[in-house]
């Protein structure tokens, strides 16, 4: 692979609320290469969306990146001014959100909202900008774009609005597209349309995609590489095949056992016991250990380091460290 496009190093993001500091992201590192589709999967509160928002620096007022670096083509975004970030957003990196119903402004036409993005980031003006808007709407598969651009968001269905959001995100052909649960609010058949669209545009334009979702099916379908998050940390990462067929972290294993699949229709599911983590009250050791069947003493006390399983796969679980240690001592 060529040069790394985005390099997130030891990212910490906290929210300072009335109830104290909530450490939503605790030391997340990953790399994104040009043209790669990276999936970030996790439950609500795992810090997957906050990671995405930290890259764009669009956190809520109470949120702040407290530590770490985000290198875009070698430059650290966290040191950039707000003005410089504004040109980064949209031009280099775009984001589409979960809810296409609320991410468009209801009082402006689709066309004028798209034109805003075009005018802001390119030299096109007037008729030239309009032509670009029509081109964009065509690219995302909207019929009769001339008519559609004069309409308001309420005149479009959920799938259509998400297409408009994608068109807006792609207005300046960014290097990175962040899709935060892009299909969660949509029906299955519409979800299939949108996923197909993202895939084909990604191939055509060669951009990198960060797909944030809780849906393991979507992840399996779309992603080259996967990052599994729990409690604000990355617990496992690897290629799609490694994560699904050779999971090493107890959380990933549990998650895969607990979802209905083609193979386990006649069997009882094996759920992960307990409830999702309370981020105000993080355990001292591994975040997953209160729900983990295999938890050991050390899991309660210390956060496990990430260890290499093989060149395509890393996991942060004491079970693996223990197994590796035992193998070394056996060989000696």
């Amino acid at each position, binding site marked *: 692979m060529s040069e790394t496009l985005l390099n997130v190093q030891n990212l910490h993001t906290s929210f300072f609320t009335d109830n104290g500091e909530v450490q939503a992201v605790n030391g997340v590192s990953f790399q994104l290469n040009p043209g790669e589709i990276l999936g970030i999967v996790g*439950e*609500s509160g795992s810090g997957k969306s906050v990671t995405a928002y930290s890259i764009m620096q669009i956190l809520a007022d109470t949120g702040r990146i407290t530590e770490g670096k985000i290198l875009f083509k070698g430059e650290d975004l966290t040191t950039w001014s707000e003005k410089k970030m504004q040109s980064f957003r949209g031009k280099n990196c775009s984001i589409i959100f979960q809810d296409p119903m609320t991410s468009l402004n209801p009082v402006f036409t689709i066309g004028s909202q798209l034109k805003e993005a075009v005018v802001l980031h390119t030299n096109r003006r007037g008729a030239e900008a309009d032509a670009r808007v029509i081109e964009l709407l065509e690219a995302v598969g909207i019929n009769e774009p001339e008519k559609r651009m004069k309409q308001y968001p309420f005149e479009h*269905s959920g*799938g*259509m609005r998400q297409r408009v959001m994608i068109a807006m995100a792609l207005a300046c052909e960014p290097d990175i597209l962040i899709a935060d649960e892009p299909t969660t609010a949509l*029906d*299955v*058949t*519409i*979800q*299939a*349309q949108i*996923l*197909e669209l993202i895939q084909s545009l990604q191939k055509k334009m060669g951009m990198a995609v960060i797909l944030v979702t*809780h*849906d*393991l*099916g*979507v*992840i*399996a*379908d779309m992603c080259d590489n996967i990052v599994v998050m729990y409690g604000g940390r990355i617990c496992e990462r690897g290629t*799609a*095949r490694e994560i*699904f*067929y050779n999971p090493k972290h107890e959380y990933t294993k*549990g*998650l*895969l056992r*607990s*979802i*209905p*699949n*083609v193979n*386990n*229709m006649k069997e*009882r*599911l*094996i*759920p*992960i*016991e307990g*409830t*999702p983590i309370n981020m105000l009250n993080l355990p001292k050791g591994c975040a997953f250990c209160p729900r983990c069947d295999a938890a050991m003493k050390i899991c309660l006390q210390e956060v496990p380091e990430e260890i290499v399983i093989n060149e395509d796969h890393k996991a942060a679980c004491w079970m693996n460290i223990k197994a590796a240690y035992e193998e070394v001592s056996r060989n000696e």
Partner: protein
Amino acid sequence: MSETLVEVRNLKQYFPVKVGFVKTIPLKAVDDISFTIGKGETLGLVGESGCGKTTAGRSILRLYKPTGGEVIFDGELITDSNITRMRKKMQMVFQDPYSSLDPRMTVEDIIGEPLDVHKLCANRKERRERILELMEIVGLNAEHATRYAHEFSGGQRQRIGIARALAVRPEFIVCDEPVSALDVSIQAQVINMFEELQDKLGVAYLFIAHDLLVVHHISKRIAVMYLGKIVEIADADELNGHPIHPYTESLLSAVPIPDPDVTRARKRIILEGDVPSPLKRPSGCPFRTRCRYATEQCAEECPTLTDRGGGHEVACWVK
């Protein structure tokens, strides 16, 4: 199939929608559906948003007064006059565990309310015992009884909702998207609980959901709805293995399966466009505007469900 518990015959549910000042037109949310559910059986009901699956569930329990058709429960026709008595045998679990529990009531009162309404407990002691028993069945601790709904997580709230439905010892529960609002790791806990309760208590479910993998897991048979009509109904494995209706076919192919090799090897059948508005329903077969195989006949006449062998019923002219 086992003995029939619920029989739905030509159920219709129209809602008047105002167009202009005085004129109203009917929105046909559920249009002439018929099916049966056996004792202790689970029938899955799937479809996209707006297809009428939730309305169907509510009309069966007479939360809406049906426009037409009838529901027969255990040999007895449900009418306005016997519905209070019948609701002792049929209950509902709602989708959103955040809005379906009264925030000003304690867990004990929420679960106890159906007991009070139907006067099932002779005294306070008996009521208390029954509530604790129900809480144990759904895996809640006795000390939770005096707490309020907001103190619980989504999965636990859904357990409270289930305990409330079980309070009257129903034979039939309509489950309206009971796991869609829950986190992935919690869904399995609740799905398992539904399955265990069925084994233990022999309740029948109408399990309404849009997640086809979840429905396939829990259901014995599955019905597929599109724009107020049932287009296909069959045994769960049969439907997933050999879908006949073009809509079912594309719906199944669109479900992302959490297995990279399997899901990437499949060919997705992408449907064009969106579901038409139920107010502007196409003539004939409701699916024909998005169907690859549509012919002239499809535009003229609406197909009815016909048996294609082994209880696999399909409503399609072409297939």
